[in-house]
């Protein structure tokens, strides 16, 4: 997921270097990285991110502890005697104090041993190997698609606020936003799979079985995830662009210099609006993850969301912990990327001054 953010980032980065705001010296990307304020920032942020991930993992652990129900009791069976539950508890290592268990989990995790599922007995790493690629592909494609859809729509709408295109885009996006994703998914299936018979209604075809079959199995789930996000982005970006066009003095300057409307939109307004969009995109990683849980269920995709939900339902601590941690790490890194991109886009943030 987070990798995908580099696409718009790279675009913007080159734009910035060509047309930096007044006061900024044009410099090559390589030179800038070598000059390294950004690199330093990445370093600084990483220093924060790593402890942050520890905090997150500890919180996950606490949350799982807070869940009602005793995993040992659950594993031993409802009416197991106290001694039996105690035996299972020892076997599962649950008799040790919480911090000790957390540390040993952490130790295992750092050395690549994530434990095994209490339900299936299979190693969590094996499960991840099966499930992670599905979710990564789905979320990644949805992420890219949502931006690819929303950018042109927002730009086209903002070019003439109140115009026909603007109204059309705004009404459509609002309508689609008001449709819950589980209903959207079912509607897409009813139209494209049941009605037109063009695409499969459920199931995942691995990439190994061909690119086209794989893509076919991905289209509907990805659309169900991407469309609401795209609407959200498009509306937000359009609002921000219009704001920029109206409020910012440099736009007037550009206009007076005779710059064309598309150029103004793209080079000036959009670059400023991209801050808000970036923030939103970072925020949405969490929603994207939440979305995969529901969408994977509807399309019978063997992904992480399903794995996590099953884990929660069956108190499978090792599985839930790992899934949550991976999702959290993805969100943290996505937000780190957002911060870095702020810096790339805005020299004031980069130099940590204002």
């Amino acid at each position, binding site marked *: 997921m987070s990798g995908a953010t580099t696409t718009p980032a790279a675009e913007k980065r080159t734009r910035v270097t060509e047309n930096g705001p007044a006061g900024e010296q044009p410099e090559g990307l390589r030179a800038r990285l070598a000059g390294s304020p950004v690199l330093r920032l990445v370093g600084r942020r990483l220093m924060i991110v790593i402890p942050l991930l520890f905090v997150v993992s500890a919180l996950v652990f606490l949350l799982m502890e807070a869940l009602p129900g005793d995993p040992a009791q659950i594993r031993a*069976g409802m009416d197991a005697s106290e001694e039996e539950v105690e035996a299972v508890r020892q076997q599962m290592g649950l008799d040790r104090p919480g911090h000790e268990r957390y540390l040993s989990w952490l130790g295992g995790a750092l050395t690549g041993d994530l434990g095994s599922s209490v339900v299936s007995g299979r190693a969590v790493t094996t499960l991840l190997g099966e499930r992670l690629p599905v979710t990564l592909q789905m979320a990644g494609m949805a992420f890219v698609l949502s931006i690819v859809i929303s950018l042109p729509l927002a730009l086209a709408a903002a070019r003439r606020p109140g115009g026909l295109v603007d109204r059309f885009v705004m009404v459509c996006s609002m309508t689609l936003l008001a449709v819950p994703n589980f209903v959207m998914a079912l509607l897409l299936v009813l139209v494209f799979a049941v009605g037109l018979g063009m695409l499969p209604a459920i199931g995942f075809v691995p990439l190994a079985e061909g690119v086209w079959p794989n893509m076919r199995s991905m289209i509907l789930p990805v659309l169900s995830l991407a469309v609401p996000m795209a609407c959200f982005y498009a509306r937000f970006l359009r609002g921000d662009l219009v704001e920029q066009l109206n409020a910012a003095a440099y736009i007037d300057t550009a206009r007076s210099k005779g710059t064309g409307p598309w150029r103004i939109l793209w080079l000036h307004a959009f670059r400023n609006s991209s801050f808000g969009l970036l923030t939103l995109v970072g925020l949405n990683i969490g929603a994207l993850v939440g979305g995969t849980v529901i969408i994977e269920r509807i399309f019978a995709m063997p992904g992480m969301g399903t794995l996590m939900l099953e884990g929660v339902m069956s108190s499978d601590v090792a599985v839930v912990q790992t899934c949550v941690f991976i999702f959290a790490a993805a969100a943290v890194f996505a937000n780190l990327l957002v911060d870095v991109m702020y810096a790339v886009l805005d020299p004031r943030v980069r130099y940590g001054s204002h």
Partner: protein
Amino acid sequence: MRRRDVPRATRRRLRAVALVSAVALAAAACSGGGGGTGTGDDGNPADPGEPQSGGEITTILDSGFAGDWSTGLDPATSNSTGANLPQNSAIFGGLFTLEPDESGEGAELVPNQAESYEWSDDGLTLTVTLREGIEFSDGTPLNAEAVVWNWIREFSSGSTGAPTVQLDLEREPPDLDQAFLDSLFAALPDDVDRDLIMARLGAIRAVDDLTVEMHLAVPNGSLVNGFPSANINLIGSPTAYAEMGAEAFSTAPVGAGPFVVTENTQNQRLELERNENYFKDGLPYLDRLTFQSVAGDQIAYQTLQSGQGDVIEGISDVALIEQADNNPDVEMHLGTPTSPYVIQLNTRTAPFDEKRAREAIYYATDFEQINQGLFNGQGEMSQSFTASGGLFHHPEVPGYREYDPEQAAEIVDEIGGLKVDLMTTDLSTARRVMTALQTQWQEAGIDVEIDSKPLGDIITEFQGGQWQAILQTAGAWDPSVGIGVAVRFGSTSPFSGTPLPDGAESAQQAIDEGLQTELDELLQAAVLTVDEAEREEHYKAISQYISDEAYGPFGIAFSPAQVMRNGVHGPGLDQPIAALAVNQGVLYDRVWVEQP
């Protein structure tokens, strides 16, 4: 001293039973509302003609029940044997199968890989004779030794699929081949009690190459009827297990059923192909069979419509059943129900420790109205714990307190008001029935709070003992198998609200001290004999006792619907078989599709 061997599996089984029952509730609850006759599009299905070989089908299973095989497919370690009937029918076939009976409504138990079975006169020894010449799909023989190997594993690996059996552990184990023992112990959990295993090897023994005996400490009248839903019905290849190891065997077990596993994505998709080595000539008809797990009936239905599936096993949403019934492209068949609803009342705590309060609930409850309203009258009414598809069915119990709102209101007045917390499992149709009950009870002046909870929380409620009323399903094809009547009404069952025996403070104490209530004795007597007529009498008495004491009103019974595209046929699909507990058991070796 005769050691009482109630394996840990018993306890686990109870949990599994609870799981199954909750789903049973959903499934039973939901199904049956279709508008039609439930026997196809026009109630007069065309004769499909002679079965044809070839072709393939995809069967859609609900990810919350049959489509959940997270504990794997090795019968000794799976905890969902009762739910995974479709997969097991395809991979293992089974020693016994439940076949359609002559009436076309109920079911009868028929030896499959077994040739016959026989009880000794004292009802303590079950002798199972195997068919000659059956081989697993890997070519090794399915013989008495393989059955003993499987049964010992299945009783001793902690699976919830093992039946409750009190084996006679006082018998000397026969002389056993060391290679056999090594193979067996290699396939058992590391921490297994070796002495117990040896004692079990005394109780379960191969008499000759095709004959196996099981020696019991007490008679068990429901043991054989319980086979089709228990793991001991499923025999896997010991050789294959030794070669593959535990994990691979659990992913792609090797049995002697009509199909072999080619690919298994846990809880998602299971692909199988024809077993060329199958022991029945000309079977199976299908070349390939795939099970696809999906979340919920709507998705199952639209998957069928999109052509990605051919059969939905156990669709339960009333509205969708009706939709399927009216769709000319698909066929819908309701099964014969076995398990009715029951409102369990907790007699161990207020307000239902008072009999009058329980009576008020009986009088205030109108299941017939719910049947008409929620299920278009397609359900079947019952006043006891089985429905017409099940054994020992008594639809009417003398003196049963039927709907009488005035009397209910009178009692409520008399006892100075009644306040009830009613719960059920968090499944849509169970919720609908509960909501309707709330309305009915409120009309009788009862103050009702309703709450639907996930299954785990319902179990916790049972454990806590403070629950008041829970809507559940009770019964099974044989009332003492699976979610039997004893689970709901036996005083020492963790899922029961009937009074504890005199002098017992807890179920555990009652078990430890061997205390029993009158109802417990009746329940026990019903399985302590293998004589059908005697069992019939006992169950009659049990129905009467529960009704007289007003332990819980029974209601509508349903079986989920099988939905398939036109041209798919087979026993358990368009040919009904009474459900063992929840879904009908489809006999996949005889499922066939019309070829163009």
